């Protein structure tokens, strides 16, 4: 039964969380807010990747269009702020709502197909949304949309402050991980994993696998939209490139890198990939070359992703453990 047999002891989580809280304060004290901002960006990508892992890893659904949901979330908040609606609670809620709606529609149609056709249809939908948004010149078109300020959540929180923003992102990240963990521990989660292993059998037992997959798809899309809402806030900018199929590809790479079907695989994949990029880009123009070799090495030497390297292989047939 895979995912959550080996639970990481709570004290390890506590340690990680403490480090995550202490780090920005430490960096801020040394006047290195730039790095705090960089960490926020990595965590946002981590949230997006974890949301993809939900359907990719746990659900076994290879969606090549996940970046579309991130983009929808980002554009929703971006457009709202541009039009003067800066309330963060409302903005984020609407962003998640629209992503959920999009996921509901796309999922309803795509989940009728399987295998490579599912991949292609999700890709097609994402490209359609990409071209549509590209053509909306009022909100920047392919030049992108710059926003003048970040979302306002009240309570005197100034999100322009890098450290404050970091904590918002960390909060959302923790919530996301807890949510995903709860989902996969529940009965729903067990059915999902059974579907991933053999959905015909699940149908035979009496669970409508299509409906379960659809719900999972919508949840993943919603979380993707949440990541997007954070992203447009972080960059004060969003462009249709966010939804291009290569971005979906990058999210997939993060998931596969970090460990398909693990709770924090998406997060680690995002961290490693982005840190690698930033560090290498300092030293050479050709950093993509080295990243490519690294990824290749991971595929060939660590089939279960980086998460698999640090874990004794579970004896069961189903894939990867949890973090």
């Amino acid at each position, binding site marked *: 039964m895979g995912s959550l047999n080996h639970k990481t002891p709570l004290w390890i989580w506590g340690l990680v969380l403490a480090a995550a809280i202490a780090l920005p304060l430490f960096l801020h004290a040394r006047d290195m807010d730039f790095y705090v901002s960089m960490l926020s960006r990595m965590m946002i990508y981590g949230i997006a990747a974890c949301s993809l892992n939900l359907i990719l890893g746990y659900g076994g659904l290879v969606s090549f269009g996940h970046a579309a949901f991130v983009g929808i979330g980002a554009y929703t908040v971006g457009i709202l702020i541009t039009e003067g609606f800066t309330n963060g609670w409302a903005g984020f809620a609407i962003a998640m709502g629209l992503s959920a709606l999009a996921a509901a529609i796309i999922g309803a149609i795509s989940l009728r197909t399987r295998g490579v056709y599912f991949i292609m249809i999700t890709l097609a939908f994402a*490209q359609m949304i990409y071209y549509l948004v590209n053509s909306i010149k009022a909100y920047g078109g392919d030049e992108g949309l710059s926003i003048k300020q970040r979302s306002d959540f009240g309570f005197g929180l100034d999100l322009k402050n890098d450290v404050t923003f970091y904590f918002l992102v960390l909060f959302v990240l923790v919530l996301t991980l807890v949510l995903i963990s709860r989902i996969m521990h529940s009965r729903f989660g067990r059915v999902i994993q059974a579907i991933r292993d053999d959905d015909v059998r699940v149908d035979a037992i009496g669970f409508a696998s299509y409906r379960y997959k659809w719900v999972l798809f919508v949840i993943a899309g919603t979380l993707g939209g949440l990541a997007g809402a954070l992203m447009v806030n972080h960059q004060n900018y969003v462009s249709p490139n966010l939804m291009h*199929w290569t971005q979906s590809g990058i999210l*997939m790479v993060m998931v596969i890198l970090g460990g398909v079907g693990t709770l924090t695989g998406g997060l680690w994949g995002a961290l490693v990939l982005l840190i690698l990029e930033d560090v290498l880009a300092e030293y050479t123009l*050709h950093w993509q070359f080295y990243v*490519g070799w690294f*990824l290749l090495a991971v*595929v060939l030497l660590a089939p279960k992703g980086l998460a698999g390297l640090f874990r004794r292989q579970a004896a069961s047939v189903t894939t990867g453990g949890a973090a």
Partner: protein
Amino acid sequence: MTGILLLEQALNGLQFGLMLFLLASGLTLVFGIMDMINLAHGALYMVGAFLTAWLVQLTQSFWLGVVLAVMLTAVVGMLLEATLLRTLYARDHLSQVLATFALILIINESVRMIWGSDLALSMPQALSGPVELLPGLRYPSYRLVIIAVGLVIALMLYLLVTQTRMGAWVRAGASNREMAMAMGINIRRLFTGVFGIGAALCAVAGAMLGPLLAVQVGMGENILILAFVVIVIGGIGSVWGAFVGAILVGFVDTLGRTLLPLLFREIFSPQFASAAGPAVASIAVYLLMAVVLFVRPQGLFSGR
């Protein structure tokens, strides 16, 4: 809206479609027979274009440069297959995605390190002028040559697949790999050969399109997606399907890019029309694919 305009656009669509076919045919065979998602297929197209640009400069002859580049790319493709890609056949699709995605990065940067981000490639002087097809229609002669090359290669592929023994092996491998192996076909060499041919076809497309578009790093990514759309429409594993799919996509994309903005311009402002027109035209291709999948989920002419 004149007939001349329509005819010229139709020719453009045919030209684009034929080049897409070159890419799609290799892709569909690899996918159909080896069951491998190869995202690096577009990178081979780029390598072909760069090699052409470089060799044309070296040899000062366009056609010699093209021929050499095509052969060289085929060799590169076969080496790639024999060393790396072979290990991926047994792996799941996700691993193939990751590995070939990594390959794109490596190949892109390698090309950049060797030749820089772009390389100039001009069409042969003799073909850089127009040909008067009809009174009032002067069509670039180079594009006519592309159409001719595309049709000839399509014919050759058709003959290869249907009339030769290798073609029979390919079709057998596409419909049932285990059975083909059991019948004694040397699957390994067949795969390498198929991959080499696919790479060569990519190189031809890259060489032909190089003078029209720019030879630049990353040129493969955009066309790769369309190639995938083509093989899904046409049916994975079917060369004939790739042909029909490519022509369809070429027409829908090109004619869409002209007709739709024209239509929109009647109704909306020029800036909106010029943005919305191409956008809807691009979507049209994906809509086409979605419709085909809905009606016939395995594609128009499934090889399996």
